[in-house]
C-alpha cells in the first residue's frame, strides 16, 4: 500500500485507534502523521536504507487489528521458550497485547516499580508516560518511528525508580499469532532511575505461518549510574518481516549491554540509536546473524558520543548460507568536546555460498582530537588452515566446519553477561548450524 493508504486508514479509523489505546500514546498521533506525510517510509534511495527497502514491506494489504479483536493466543506455548537454569519474570506480548504470567503477576516487586502495559501505565502513571513516551524516538529521521507512533495501541512499560535493582531478569516473549497476514505495531518504554538496574530478554516468535510485518520501537532512558542489559532474540519464520528501532539515552556513569541475535527470520532490519548524554558511561553492543535461504538481516547502529569519557564497543558477526543477504552499517559520531572517547567497532562475516551476499559499512565521524576510535570489518570464509589442522586430527569435515562456525560466533556469545543465556545461545546456534533450525525442545512456537 502506498503511504497515502496508511494515512487514509489512520484518518478514517482515528477514533477506533484512540479507543484501543490511551493517554500519551494518542496525544502524539497527529504529530506522527504529519511526520509520515513529510518524510514517507524509508526506502532504498536513502543512504541508511541502501540495502533494505523497508517501504516495499509496507506494500501488501496488511491486516491491522485496530479494533483489538481477541486472537486467542495460546500463551502457554511461550513457556516452552524459557531459558534453562535462568529464573526470570515472565511476560508476554501477544501481537501487541500485554500479559503477565501468573508467577510474574504475583511476584512482589520493589516499591515504585511498574511493569505493565502501556495502556495501564497511561491510567496509573500518566505523568511518567507523558514525560518519556516518544521523547527519544525521532520521527523526523528516516525510519518507522512515525508510522509506529501513529498506529501503536499498546506495548509494555517498565519503570524502575532511583536506586532500585531488579535482580531477576525480565523475559518478554512476543508471540505473533493471526489467522490472516497481519501488521503489528508494538512499543516498549523503559525508564531507569539513578542507580537502577534491569535485565531484559526479548524473544520474538511467530505462532502461525502467516506473514507478519512487525514494527517495534523501544525507548530506553538509562539514568545516571544505572545498569541496563537488553537481549533481543529473533526466532520467527521466513514469512516474517520485522523493523525494529531502539533508542537509548545513557545517563552519566551508566552501563549498558545490548545484544541482538537473529537465529531465524524472514527479513529483518534492526536500528540502534544510542546517545551518550552524560560523562563516563559505557555501551557494549553486539549482534549475531545466522541466516540461510532467502533471509535478510540488516543491522544499523548509530552511536552518538556527546559527552566526555564514554566508551562504546561493538561486535557484530554474520554467517550467511544459501542465498541470504546480510548488511551492517555502524556509525560512530564523536561530537566536538567529547574528549577521551574510546570507541571500537568490529564486523566480521562469513559467506558460505556463492549466492550469499554481504554489505558492510562501518563509519567514523570524529570532531574531537583526544580520542581513540577504531573500526574493522572483514568478509571471508572459514580459515582453511584451521580446517586442515582439524581434518588432520581425524575430525570429519562437516564437524570441523561446524566447530569453526561455532567458534566464530562464540566470540559474540562470550560477551553475553548472563551465563545461562550464554549456554542457551550456544546450544541454539549449534542446532542452527546443524540444520535443525532453532527450535526449542517441543516448542511449536519456534518451528
Amino acid at each position, binding site marked *: 500500500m502506498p503511504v497515502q493508504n496508511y494515512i487514509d486508514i489512520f484518518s478514517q479509523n482515528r477514533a477506533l485507534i484512540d479507543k484501543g489505546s490511551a493517554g500519551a500514546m494518542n496525544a502524539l498521533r497527529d504529530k506522527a502523521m504529519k511526520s509520515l506525510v513529510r518524510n514517507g517510509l524509508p526506502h532504498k534511495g536513502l*543512504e541508511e536504507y541502501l540495502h533494505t527497502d523497508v517501504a516495499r514491506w509496507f506494500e501488501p494489504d496488511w491486516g491491522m487489528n485496530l479494533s483489538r479483536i481477541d486472537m486467542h493466543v495460546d500463551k502457554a506455548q511461550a513457556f516452552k521458550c524459557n531459558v534453562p537454569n535462568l529464573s526470570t519474570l515472565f511476560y508476554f506480548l501477544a501481537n501487541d497485547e500485554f500479559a503477565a504470567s501468573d508467577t510474574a503477576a504475583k511476584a512482589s516487586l520493589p516499591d515504585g516499580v511498574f511493569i505493565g502495559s502501556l495502556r495501564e501505565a497511561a491510567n496509573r502513571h500518566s505523568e511518567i508516560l507523558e514525560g518519556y513516551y516518544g521523547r527519544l524516538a525521532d520521527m523526523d529521521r528516516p525510519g518507522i518511528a512515525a508510522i509506529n507512533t501513529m498506529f501503536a495501541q499498546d506495548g509494555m512499560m517498565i519503570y524502575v525508580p532511583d536506586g532500585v535493582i531488579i535482580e531477576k531478569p525480565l523475559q518478554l516473549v512476543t508471540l505473533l499469532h493471526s489467522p490472516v497476514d497481519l501488521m503489528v505495531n508494538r512499543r516498549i518504554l523503559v525508564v531507569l532511575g539513578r542507580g537502577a538496574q534491569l535485565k531484559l530478554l526479548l524473544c520474538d516468535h511467530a505462532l502461525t505461518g502467516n506473514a507478519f510485518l512487525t514494527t517495534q520501537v523501544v525507548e530506553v532512558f538509562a539514568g545516571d549510574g544505572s545498569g541496563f542489559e537488553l537481549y533481543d532474540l529473533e526466532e520467527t519464520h521466513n514469512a516474517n518481516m520485522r523493523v525494529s528501532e531502539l533508542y537509548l539515552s545513557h545517563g552519566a556513569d551508566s552501563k549498558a549491554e545490548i545484544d541482538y541475535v537473529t537465529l531465524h527470520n524472514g527479513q529483518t532490519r534492526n536500528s540502534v540509536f544510542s546517545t551518550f548524554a552524560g560523562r563516563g558511561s559505557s555501551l557494549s553492543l553486539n549482534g549475531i546473524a545466522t541466516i540461510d535461504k532467502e533471509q535478510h538481516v540488516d543491522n544499523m547502529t548509530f552511536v552518538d558520543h556527546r559527552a566526555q569519557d564514554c566508551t562504546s564497543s561493538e561486535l557484530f558477526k554474520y554467517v550467511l548460507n544459501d542465498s541470504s543477504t546480510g548488511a551492517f552499517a555502524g556509525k560512530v559520531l564523536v561530537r566536538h568536546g567529547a574528549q577521551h572517547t574510546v570507541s571500537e567497532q568490529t564486523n566480521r562475516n562469513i559467506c558460505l*555460498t556463492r549466492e550469499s551476499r554481504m554489505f*558492510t559499512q*562501518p563509519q*567514523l565521524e*570524529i570532531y574531537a582530537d583526544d580520542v581513540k*576510535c577504531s573500526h574493522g*570489518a572483514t568478509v*571471508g570464509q572459514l580459515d582453511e588452515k584451521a580446517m586442515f589442522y582439524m581434518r588432520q586430527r581425524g575430525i570429519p569435515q562437516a564437524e570441523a566446519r561446524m566447530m569453526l562456525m561455532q567458534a566464530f560466533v562464540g566470540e559474540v556469545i562470550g560477551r553475553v553477561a548472563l551465563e545461562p543465556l550464554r549456554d542457551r545461545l550456544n546450544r541454539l546456534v549449534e542446532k542452527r548450524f546443524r540444520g535443525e533450525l532453532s527450535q526449542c525442545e517441543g516448542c511449536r512456537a519456534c518451528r
Partner: protein
Amino acid sequence: MNSVEQENSLIREISAEKYRYGFTTDVHTEIIDRGLTEDTVRLISERKGEPEWMLEFRLKAYRHWLTMEMPHWAHLDIPEIDYQNISYYADPTAKKEGPKSLEEIDPQVMKTFDKLGIPLEERLALSGGVAVDAVMDSVSVKTTFKKTLAEKGIIFCSMGEAIRNHPDLIKQYLGSVVNYRDNFFAALNSAVFSDGSFVYIPKGVRCPMELSTYFRINAAGTGQFERTLIVADDDSYVSYLEGCTAPMRDENQLHAAIVEIVVMDRAEVKYSTVQNWYPGDENGKGGVYNFVTKRGLVKGVDAKLSWTQVETGSAITWKYPSCVLQGDGSQGEFYSVALTNNWQQADTGTKMIHLGRNTKSTVISKGISAGHSQNSYRGLIKVGEHADGARNYSQCDSLLLGSDCGAHTFPYMDVKNETAIVEHEATTSKISEDQLFYCNQRGIPMEQAIGLIVNGYAKEVLNKLPMEFAVEAQRLLSVSLENTVG
C-alpha cells in the same frame, strides 16, 4: 605555558603558514567570455582546431550535463557554484600580434615554470630525469623529451595534439573508462575539457623516464578542466607524475578533471600525484575546488595499477582514484596522504572493483586534520560474482591535530563472491603522548617531535612516490606543519 597550551598555540600557528606558489604571472591571456552554453562548447572545440567527431563528443556530454544535478552526498559543505560565472577557456600562449613561432614560449610563462621548479629546457633536466608536459590554464605550453620518447614508440603529448595526430587511439580510448554519463563533473569535463596529457606506451616498452604533467591555473575567473589519458599496452611500464598549483585569490576556482588509464596484459602503471592547489587563506577565503574523477581500467591479465597521492592543497577536494580490476590476476593499489588545515575540506578515497579472478587490491590511507578542517576517507571495495579468490586489504588511519577539526571514515564493502577475502581496518587518534614524551626526553623540541611523528606516520605512503616527488611531498608536509608539528 604548559605543554597542552604550547601544543595548541603551535597548532594555531599553522594557519599563519603561507602558500609559496600563490604568485600570479603577468602574461597576455585570451579568455573567452564567462558562461556555459552550446556555443561555448563549440567555441572551445574551434579554438582547439578539433575535428567534428570531437565536437559531437563534447556536445553529447554537455546535453547530458544539463540533465544532471550536482552531487551532495559527500561529507562536504560546498557553497553554491555559479557555472555561468566561470570562463571555460583561457589561453596564455595566444600571441598579441599574430603567430610568430609555435615553439616560441612567452618568457614570462617560462619564468613561471622555472619558479615552480619545473624545468622546461631539456638540457636543465637531470640525466635520466623527467619528461614534462606543462599546462597553464587551458593550454599545454610545452612537452619535453618528446623526441627521445618517440624513438621508443612512446607517445607523450598534450591532449589537443593527440586529438589531431592520433585520432584512432583517442576515439578508441577517450571516455572508455570514465563515460560522460558517469557523474556531474565527468559530464562537465567531457563537454569543456582542454589540454591534459596523452600517453601511449607500446607493447613491451618500459618507459625510460618518469613522465610528468604540471598543471598551473593562472588566469582569474577561470576554471581548469584538463583531461588525461594513459594507455599502457601489453608488457609495458610507465611511471607518471602529476603536480599542480594555483595563485592565491579570494575567489574560488573550479578544477574538474578526468584521468583515464587503461592497463593491458602484464603492464604496469604507477600514477603519482602531489596535489597542492591553493587551499584558501586562514579564514577559509578563496582556494580551489578540486572535483576530480580518476579511474583506471586494469584490463589485462596480471596487470597492475598503483595510485599514490599526497593531497595538501585545495579548499575542497572530491576525489576517488579507482581501479576496475577486470583482468585475471590484476592488481590495484591506492596509497594516500591527505592533509587538511585551516578550513579545508577533503572527501577522498578509492574504489576497488574486483571483476576478474584472483585480483588483489591494497588501500593505505593516512589522513591528517588540523585547524578547523574536515578530512574524510570514503572507499568502496566491490567484489563481483565471478571474482574468485579476490583479496583486499584496506587500512585507513586518521590523525587529529587540534580539537576543532574532524576526521571521518566511510568505507563500503560489497561482496558477492564467497571465496573473496576483504579486510578493512581504521583507527583515529591524536599524536601519542608517549611518543612525544619520548622525543622530548631525548632533547627533541615539541615542534620537531610532532613533525617527526607525522612524517613517520605518512612514511608508508611517501615511500611509494618516485624520488623527486617524495622529496617534494615530504617538504610540503613539513611546510604545512611548520611551527606546529614539524
